[in-house]
């Protein structure tokens, strides 16, 4: 709402400057905002939604009374009735309209407003229309009651306050033809709606230069109905936003009379008798507040006199009985319901700054943190250690972006009222935005990136929107451009990452496997976690590594870049993994291990067989948990070497072979680390390997 120093002065007499007025308002939490182009005494105030009383100049002036030695001027509303003309009013439901008041005014002269009135309504933010309409708006601004003037001669004999019927139509004052329904409350005559109740009048009953007889309306509608109607129609007006809040029911007739008085003064005419349907009188509200409670609630002692003075100045009646202060709340303060509302008034007028600060003496309640937070923080630490930097994305994507990835049945969650079509869905996968992050960074020539994000993915499960915590990791151009190196570096990091959750306890318990799934948009390498010791080996899909196809990269201006993005389900990691630090004696043997390197020739087959070779050696008679195997090299032979080796080992021609270099570190202290012992073990290992088709090229001691 727009107010001015001069405007307030007319209703609040006293000795105060513009700056002092601003300080008063600020103290009450009504931060006055000075807009560009306004003169120094003009300002805007954002009125809290519970304080309908402050949306009028009299209400605002009254709220300042406890802050100084002021005199409050309430506008004059005494009228003399000259005619007995009436218009019958019927309210179809008092649930929809609590009270409807009106008066007829005969023989008015409608003309453009005088300068004074025009200036008043325009500075209050209204457009000047004519003297009658301007007066209704002026009274609205002055007393906070929205008013409406009809051309009485255009109303057919009776006023009905009723719900619209479905499909009923009205052209509102803004010239728009609106189709109504049963949710919307209207003011109608015998034949048709003449206004949308509490929102806007109709053109069919509009006051115009030919109007001589008026019907003035001042009513109190159910705020929820007005709010709903306004939402359905997509039409918000000053009046509707006022009616949505609780207006002061007892001002209805006062405002009507004030309006009639001004019309008589400025437009002439004779005012008719009051037409009143329903009741505007409210029940007396008395709230009791214990002083003990007041002081313990604020944490400081306020004097009884001060409290009483604040309320009396605000127009609240007070009485004291023992520890209790009984406060009778005036009808214009619909927001005051509980004793804490009274406490707030006291704190506010006394000043928040006067309340001291104190660190509470509290019972120690060992805090039970949500384990998710610990888990996420640990995971973020692991990932930064692995060289990935964190990103945070909105999580809002478009359907087109989702379709770019062909991730299968994702059942994405749609936002019903999105801000824009770019943000129409919740992300079903973190990959979508991570690729966009690479696009942006690449545009700025930020090269060699490794990024991760931890956040929710969203999908429909049984048609219900659901979320799942996930992590996504991605690299761009961090390998050496030979293709395989980039992938293996990335895969190595993913494996290391997963091992921190699944390997610490028992090396043999979990196996991480990869399955290839080729799509048009790229290749998905699904990451499978197998729980071996379970009676029936359990397989969980932990996530995937995605290698985007060039066609997809082109859409993101990333053609020619080497990019891999992985997404891993954090819920599985959290529920099945073990993220614990512990000490394993086996991993720190006190003797220096003995190393043997084996150069092996293996059939080039699915990747998982490589791992199989290594895993197969961890059997009690060969290797213990203290011993360690490392693959240090994977190499392909030249054509000549290949031929020689195929011949030497008797592989049949079509079988492709690869070289694999492994190191074995023997540390087991129990089995004496003598040369004979080691030779014996290596011999057994070679025998085991050969049984599974592996050949020994040479051994280095």
């Amino acid at each position, binding site marked *: 709402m727009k107010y001015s120093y001069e405007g307030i002065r007319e209703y609040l007499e006293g000795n105060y400057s513009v700056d002092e007025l601003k300080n008063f308002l600020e103290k009450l*939490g009504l931060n006055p905002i000075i807009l560009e182009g306004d003169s120094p005494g003009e300002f805007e105030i954002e009125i809290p939604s519970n304080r309908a009383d402050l949306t009028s100049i009299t209400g605002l002036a009254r709220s300042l009374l406890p802050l100084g030695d002021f005199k409050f001027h309430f506008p004059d509303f005494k009228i003399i009735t000259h005619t007995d003309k009436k218009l019958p009013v019927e309210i179809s439901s008092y649930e929809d309209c609590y009270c409807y008041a009106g008066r007829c005014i005969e023989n008015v002269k409608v003309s453009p407003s005088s300068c004074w009135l025009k200036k008043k309504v325009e500075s209050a933010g209204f457009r000047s229309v004519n003297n009658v309409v301007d007066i209704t708006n002026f009274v609205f601004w002055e007393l906070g009651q929205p008013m409406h003037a009809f051309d009485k001669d255009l109303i057919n004999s009776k006023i009905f306050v009723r719900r619209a019927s479905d499909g009923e139509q009205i052209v509102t004052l803004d010239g728009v033809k609106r189709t109504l329904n049963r949710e919307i409350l209207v003011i109608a005559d015998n034949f048709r709606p003449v206004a949308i109740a509490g929102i806007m009048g109709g053109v069919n009953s509009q006051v115009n230069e030919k109007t001589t007889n008026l019907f003035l309306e001042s009513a109190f509608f159910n705020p929820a109905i007005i709010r709903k109607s306004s939402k359905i129609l997509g039409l918000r007006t000053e009046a509707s936003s006022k009616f949505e809040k609780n207006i002061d029911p007892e001002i209805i007739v006062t405002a009507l009379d004030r309006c009639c008085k001004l019309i008589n003064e400025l437009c002439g005419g004779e005012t008719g008798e009051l037409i009143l349907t329903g009741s505007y009188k409210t029940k007396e509200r008395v709230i009791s507040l214990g002083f003990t409670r007041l002081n313990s609630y604020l944490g400081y002692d306020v004097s009884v006199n001060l409290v009483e003075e604040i309320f009396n100045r605000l127009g609240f009646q007070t009485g004291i009985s023992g520890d209790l202060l009984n406060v009778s709340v005036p009808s214009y303060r619909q927001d005051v319901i509980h004793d804490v509302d009274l406490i707030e008034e006291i704190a506010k007028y006394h000043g928040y700054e006067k309340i001291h600060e*104190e660190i509470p003496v509290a019972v120690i309640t060992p805090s039970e943190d949500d384990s998710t937070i610990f888990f996420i923080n640990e995971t973020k630490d692991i990932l*930064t250690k692995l060289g990935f930097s964190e990103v*945070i994305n909105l999580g809002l994507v478009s359907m087109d972006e989702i379709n770019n990835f062909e991730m299968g049945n994702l059942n994405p*969650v749609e936002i019903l009222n999105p801000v824009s079509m770019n943000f129409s869905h919740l992300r079903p996968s973190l990959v979508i935005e991570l690729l966009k992050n690479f696009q942006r960074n690449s545009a700025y020539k930020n090269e060699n990136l490794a990024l991760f994000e931890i956040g929710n993915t969203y999908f429909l499960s049984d048609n219900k929107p659901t979320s799942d915590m996930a992590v996504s990791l991605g690299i761009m151009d961090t390998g050496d451009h030979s293709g395989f190196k980039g992938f293996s570096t990335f895969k190595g990091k993913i494996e290391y990452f997963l091992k921190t959750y699944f390997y610490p306890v028992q090396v043999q318990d979990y196996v991480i496997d990869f399955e290839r799934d080729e799509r048009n948009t790229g290749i998905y390498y699904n990451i499978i976690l197998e729980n071996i010791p379970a009676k029936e080996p359990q397989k969980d899909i932990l996530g995937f590594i995605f290698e985007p196809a060039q066609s997809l990269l082109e859409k993101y201006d990333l053609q020619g870049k080497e990019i891999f993005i992985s997404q891993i389900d954090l819920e599985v990691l959290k529920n099945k993994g073990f993220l614990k630090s512990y000490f394993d004696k086996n991993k720190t043997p006190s003797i220096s291990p003995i190393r043997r390197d084996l150069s092996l020739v293996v059939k080039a087959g699915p990747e998982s067989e490589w791992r199989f070779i290594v895993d197969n050696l961890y059997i009690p008679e060969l290797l213990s948990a203290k011993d360690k195997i490392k693959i240090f090299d994977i190499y392909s032979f030249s054509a000549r070497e290949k031929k020689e080796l195929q011949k030497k080992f008797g592989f049949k021609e079509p079988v492709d072979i690869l070289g694999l270099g492994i190191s074995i570190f023997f540390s087991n202290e129990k089995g004496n680390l003598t040369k004979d012992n080691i030779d014996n073990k290596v011999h057994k290992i070679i025998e085991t390997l050969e049984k599974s088709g592996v050949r020994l090229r040479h051994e280095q001691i």
Partner: protein
Amino acid sequence: MNNEIFEKAEKEIEIAQHGIKNISDNEKLEQWRIKYFGRKGLILSFTQKIGGLPEELRPLAGRKINEWKNYLNSLYENKKKEIISSSAIKETFHHGSMPLYTYPGKEPDYAYLHPLTIVTKNMVDIFKKMGFGIHTGPEIETDYYNFSALNTPENHPARDMWDTLYLDYHEKILLRTHTSPVQIRIMKKIKPPFRIIAVGKCFRRDAFDSSHSPVFHQMEGLMVGHGINFAHLKGILIYFLKELFDSEIKVRFLPAYFPFTEPSAEISISCVICKGKGCSTCGGSGWLEILGAGMVHPEVFGNISRKDPAYSPDKITGFAFGMGIERIAMLKYGIDDIRHFYNNDIRFISQFG
């Protein structure tokens, strides 16, 4: 004649001993090695001559060769060690006359946490010192938790304060507009007294521009117990803000309106940029609004106490507060555009590790 051979060899050894003294790099040392140990070197050529010696001299010659070989070898090994230890200084950092030590080093691949993570951690740490527990809640919420239970029933005009994104109108499923629903979830789970904070993503139907984002992060706080009062709210928050920003800042509490607290307050700090003098960051006022807080509304406790009498508003009181993490990060670091947080440009992210 035979003695001459020995003498000549002895002389050669002397020369070798002398020659190696001046050697200071591996290349020359290798030349020296080849000269004495190579195919045409002293040792081999002398060995070849043994055959031509008289029978009785041959054992002596063999012993001599071994002696010389060992001696030269020890000279070689010592020199090699000397070069390794000295070359670490001379050659690694110098290439000819170029002082390589002045050249830029090879940077490692650093990794950074997002500034929102860093600021959140700072904030959480301060509350942890005061014994607050940390909790989370779902981003997909129901109307009940996000609004109704927080004293904002349907058609309440205060709902306009939060422009909401909906997922299902019929089932009233929405994206939480603030972290306050966690208050209700916590009170349904644990009994008072307690003090907790909650952090998470929130959503509003806002445009994406320099000062608005449809997605942002909030930190919520709630302390409930017997005799918790407004002075405590001030004490905790002033301590928090001074720890987070600077012990010199001023903190201002002004009245505000939130449906779920009464009395409510809006808290500002003196501008961190101009120290309260007035600048463009604080819009000339010298103050920066930083969080909303208040005493928990009895209606909110009432909603819980219907099932759990421990929350009867007659028995307990409490305070709650909420703040935007982006806003705090922007003020803490002087960031001028909220979109920086979500553009994820590594040049931005890497400034905060």
